């Protein structure tokens, strides 16, 4: 690229900008509109990658890479971890609680955008010098020379900042154990004293078709037992109730036996088969 007075980019870059830019904006919008935190995080990651590309396009090769590695690679992953910790499905209802907050926010955002646009428009930024000269010795070298000469102090300070942040994070997340941990014996005695469920909890339901920890085992009367499912799943409400299937299978069994003993009863089989099929699809759904 050569530095001209009135500077324009190559058509390729323009094309790339318009396409990716659109995607980036959409990603950003999704970030703020998605119901579930996970989805927001994913959209944001996408946007960031696109930004990385733009960095590269702007001749900030080092930053572009850092953007991908640090941001998208590390920070966003950190986000995902936290989301997991806090709960993937702890989706906050988008219903606004504070009166007029949403409209105010929207208005502010819009107004601010307009403002910035106006500002940028006012500032006549026609002539771009381009980075050709700056990047002669290679972008990374250029940055390095700057960082270690001109910005060395800032650099050192950021280092200190990072350390402090790390320590701070540890302090914040570390939970002080106040009392001695209970031994197994003590626990057992406690359970007995409180008359809790003494034997190990029943296993989750296991079937030929699918065995999964999220399926409640059935009690003799065919109703599912919550106990059999792991606590976390229970809290997230991710238990799949398959008791109906079991009953249908039972009916199907009787059906077959009647088939073998007597002449077939079309209607019932049909219904049975149809129901069977429906239920199959249903299960497909749930297993996703």
């Amino acid at each position: 690229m050569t530095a001209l007075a009135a500077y324009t980019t190559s058509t390729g870059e323009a094309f790339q900008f318009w396409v990716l830019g659109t995607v980036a904006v959409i990603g950003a919008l999704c970030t703020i509109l998605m119901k579930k935190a996970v989805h927001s995080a994913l959209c944001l990651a996408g946007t960031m990658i696109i930004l990385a590309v733009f960095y590269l396009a702007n001749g900030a090769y080092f930053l572009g890479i850092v953007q991908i590695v640090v941001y998208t690679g590390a920070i966003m992953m950190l986000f995902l971890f936290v989301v997991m910790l806090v709960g993937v499905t702890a989706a906050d209802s988008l219903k606004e609680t504070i009166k007029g907050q949403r409209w105010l926010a929207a208005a502010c955002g819009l107004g601010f955008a307009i403002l910035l646009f106006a500002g940028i428009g006012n500032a006549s930024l026609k002539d771009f010098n381009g980075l050709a000269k700056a990047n002669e010795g290679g972008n990374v070298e250029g940055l390095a020379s700057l960082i270690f000469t001109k910005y060395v102090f800032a650099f050192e300070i950021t280092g200190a900042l990072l350390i402090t942040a790390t320590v701070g994070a540890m302090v914040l997340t570390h939970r002080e154990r106040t009392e001695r941990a209970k031994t197994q014996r003590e626990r057992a005695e406690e359970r007995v004293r409180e008359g809790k469920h003494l034997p190990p909890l029943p296993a989750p339901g296991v079937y030929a078709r699918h065995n999964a920890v999220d399926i409640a085992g059935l009690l003799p009367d065919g109703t599912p037992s919550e106990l059999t499912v792991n606590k976390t799943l229970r809290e997230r409400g991710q238990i799949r109730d398959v008791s109906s299937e079991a009953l249908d299978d039972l009916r199907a069994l009787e059906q077959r036996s009647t088939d073998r003993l007597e002449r077939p009863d079309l209607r019932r089989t049909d219904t049975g088969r149809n129901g069977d099929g429906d239920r199959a699809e249903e299960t497909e759904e749930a297993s996703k």
Partner: protein
Amino acid sequence: MNPVNYLYLAALLFAIGATGVLIRRNAIVVFMCIELMLNACNLAFVAFSRLHGNLDGQIIAFFTMVVAAAEVVVGLAIIVSLFRSRHSASVDDASLMKL
């Protein structure tokens, strides 16, 4: 195309991020929006460095990233401990300032 469009894009993203901060109640999402705003700024810086033809803008962007990283670490830690204490990641639940 004039690279100034990068600036417009940055502005747009920034505004979106800001709006998100204001609308969302889930602390994590709010945080993401903040990250978004930071990135928008970075983009602007990069564009500026291209405008001026020197690397200082990129340096600033670099530092921004570092700071953002530190900030995310601490911020997420805060969110986690908040969640522990309140079993919720909603910023509205932490409204002790209310009279």
